């Protein structure tokens, strides 16, 4: 009895140590990763704006700020960034609301297909979208008559193309679960359909709309690839300006100052977004789980206008650029139809524009994206696991909240800032004598940093939805914490893991902002190669860029479709 009890006590103590060690490692690994590969580079970069290196050492010097902030060009860029983001957000929300209604509140044949179609642009690489719209607006393109090339309107349209899905999915998944009886009650009290919508449904959707708008604003304000390709010399964002000043003018100091400006804009958007999300989580508790979709009523009901608006957006804004891209890619440089551009993907382009062939670049892309996905899913999965817990102690609960917020930061800090920060810090990481910049390891790591917030946001709702009593039931059946993790959280979270891997892989495949800084010519990825090709003269190179864009688009869309399949119908995820 005594021996037994001693063994039990010792086992208990070992178990508690094990638990502390396990959770400690689960927190330390992601935090360490974030510190070395995100916080350190970004902070070093920001400090470049505040300090100058002199013979005496570092001195505080704000003249960089004074200089950059007094330039007329800076304010033009800031104004353009805000104006583009604002216009893109407003238009995305206005067009996205009817889309959310039609795709989540109505039933019609082919709905799943349209929902998938709407999601594709969101995961398309930004460079591909830029190339697609450029092909559309170019003289001789399908919309060549509208003179949208290098215009404000052109950029905004491309931003809406990207972010329409964010609004449709975020608002739609909320609308789907909204109890229709509240609106029916309003109708029974004599409200017209419009009044019932305005006074009952819209307020209920408010937090979801605000949350979606904040995210869209963030994506628009930090848009890089699209604007770089479409904006030409006249239009840009802070993001493209950082890139230009670093790579074209080699002016690191003013680029650092601009990064600080960018952080201010992003922090504001993130603040609004987190406020809205908290409200949405509260609001969600009020809604029922009942399936509330009704058959699409084109003749009698009020579904005609939303359905029409959605059809126009899907056909005109989403399908047209993609179809235009595909058809242009099938035109050989001499104007005849054929697969010449695709055949040329085995070459390094006209006048040797590239160091590698496009197919080799595709291989590079797949390799780095696979590594990035592994890193992102391991780090992001650990974060999601830790954040999904509700510790009993208030202090620990707050710590978990801070961890959650910390891993949302990479979503807001521009990829260009991350890539640029890598360049200036990781030549001797932590004083070690290994230059990571030449090892090729930085590209997947940077892509992982960008993908981690998406992984966390994909897995977290699913892990949070696991009833804690299920874990308690397992524990009372004799399962130790490790076995609970393996037999309860593991299988139930596995489906979100599939989506998270797909998401991370697709995002990494298309990542351009950070990669463009870090990839060397011989390890260039597909988006980098595409951008280089459209920058070189010659119809041959342009044709190759179009064909390569189609290849990249098909690849990412396929990855996403497979990942969506893995998820099934269950709601979850934010994007």
């Amino acid at each position: 009895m005594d021996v037994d009890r001693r063994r039990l006590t010792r086992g208990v103590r070992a178990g508690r140590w094990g638990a502390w060690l396990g959770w400690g490692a689960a927190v330390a690994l992601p935090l360490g990763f974030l510190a070395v590969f995100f916080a350190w580079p970004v902070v070093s970069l920001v400090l470049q704006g505040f300090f100058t290196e002199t013979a005496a050492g570092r001195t505080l010097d704000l003249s960089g700020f004074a200089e950059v902030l007094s330039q007329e060009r800076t304010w033009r860029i800031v104004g353009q960034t805000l104006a583009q983001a604002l216009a893109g957000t407003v238009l995305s929300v206005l067009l996205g609301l009817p889309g959310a209604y039609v795709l989540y509140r109505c039933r019609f044949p082919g709905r799943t297909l349209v929902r998938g179609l709407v999601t594709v642009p969101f995961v398309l690489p930004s460079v591909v979208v830029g190339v697609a719209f450029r092909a559309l607006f170019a003289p001789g393109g399908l919309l060549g008559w509208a003179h949208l090339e290098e215009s404000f309107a052109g950029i905004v349209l491309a931003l809406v193309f990207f972010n329409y899905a964010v609004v449709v999915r975020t608002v739609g998944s909320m609308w789907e679960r909204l109890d229709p009886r509240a609106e029916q009650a309003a109708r029974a009290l004599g409200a017209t359909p419009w009044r019932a919508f305005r006074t009952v449904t819209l307020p209920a959707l408010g937090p979801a709309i605000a949350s979606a708008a904040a995210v869209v604003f963030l994506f628009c304000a930090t848009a890089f690839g699209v604007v770089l390709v479409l904006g030409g010399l006249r239009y840009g964002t802070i993001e493209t300006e950082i890139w230009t000043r670093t790579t074209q003018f080699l002016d690191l100091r003013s680029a650092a100052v601009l990064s600080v400006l960018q952080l201010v804009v992003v922090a504001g958007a993130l603040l609004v977004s987190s406020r809205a999300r908290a409200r949405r989580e509260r609001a969600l508790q009020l809604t029922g789980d009942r399936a509330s979709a009704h058959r699409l009523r084109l003749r009698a009901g009020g579904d005609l206008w939303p359905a029409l608006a959605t059809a126009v957006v899907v056909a005109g804004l989403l399908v047209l650029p993609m179809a235009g891209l595909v058809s242009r890619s099938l035109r050989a440089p001499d104007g005849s139809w054929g697969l010449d551009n695709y055949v040329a993907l085995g070459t390094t382009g006209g006048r040797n524009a590239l160091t590698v062939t496009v197919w080799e670049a595709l291989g590079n892309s797949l390799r780095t994206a696979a590594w990035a996905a592994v890193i992102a899913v391991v780090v992001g999965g650990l974060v999601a696991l830790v954040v999904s817990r509700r510790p009993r102690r208030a202090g620990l609960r707050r710590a978990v909240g801070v961890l959650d917020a910390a891993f949302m930061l990479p979503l807001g800090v521009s990829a260009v800032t991350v890539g640029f920060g890598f360049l200036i810090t990781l030549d001797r990481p932590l004083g070690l004598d290994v230059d990571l910049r030449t090892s090729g390891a930085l590209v997947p790591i940077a892509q992982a940093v960008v993908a981690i917030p998406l992984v966390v946001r994909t897995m977290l709702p699913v892990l949070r939805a696991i009833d804690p009593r299920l874990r308690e039931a397992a524990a009372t059946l004799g399962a130790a914490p490790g076995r609970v993790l393996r037999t309860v959280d593991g299988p139930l979270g596995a489906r979100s893991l599939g989506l998270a891997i797909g998401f991370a892989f697709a995002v990494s495949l298309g990542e351009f902002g950070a990669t463009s800084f870090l990839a060397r010519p011989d390890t260039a990825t597909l988006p980098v190669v595409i951008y280089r090709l459209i920058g070189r003269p010659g119809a041959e190179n342009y044709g190759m860029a179009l064909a390569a864009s189609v290849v990249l688009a098909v690849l990412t869309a396929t990855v996403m479709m497979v990942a969506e399949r893995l998820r099934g119908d269950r709601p979850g995820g934010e994007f």
Partner: protein
Amino acid sequence: MEQVRETAGLAVRDAVVRYGATRRRPGSVAVDGVSLDVAAGEIVALLGPSGCGKSSLLRAVAGLEPLAGGTVAFDGEDLAGVPVHRRGFGLLFQDGQLFPHRDVGRNVAYGLETQGLSRAERSARVAALLDDVGLAGYQGRSVATLSGGEKQRVALARALAPRPRLLLLDEPLSALDRRLRERLAVDVRDTLKATGTTAVFVTHDHDEAFTVADRVAVMDAGRLLQVDAPDVLLRAPAGPRVAEFLGLAPEADGLARAERTTAG
């Protein structure tokens, strides 16, 4: 030897459970100094209105809530610091909490998988348990296809499978309709008695408590009011609050009826 017999079974002494306590605030008290003994092989019902702390007491016994004061011991051994999975207690939730990703057979087998049984022994035990709860041959069924009553039967079989030294049942029948509840209450008692399981059964329904339990502990506002066999309880309730809760208080009943007539 003498001492062991005295302390065989569950012994709860002055247990206190608080919620939302921090260093500065004491939080709210859910269980306020409860002492309760359950002898080996005995079934005790914890009876009380919702929010009286009976589920909190049960969770504290299981090790799912920390005790703010007092002790929980089993067979004379203090369980402070012993984690849930080493206590050897089973717990049955109101809504079963079956694992959605496992079929009926693998749900029941969950607690057996770490006990070093051979596959044949395990499936024999699963079959026997399913037979005991009246669901013979259900091994391959998906838990999503079960009715509410069937789910609770599977949950009972799953909880009994590892032969817990104490089974805790947290309102296991409350989510079911009345007729099914009455029938299942008898089944639960028969199964517990047949397996010789020591059990604490939480409920807010006095009929259910009287059907299932050897002794009934009436609880209100975090305290135990009376612990007695059903017939003693009915004959001599320890106070008006107990009598009222057992549906015996004539004045309270009369008052309610008078109110109803004036309202009507």
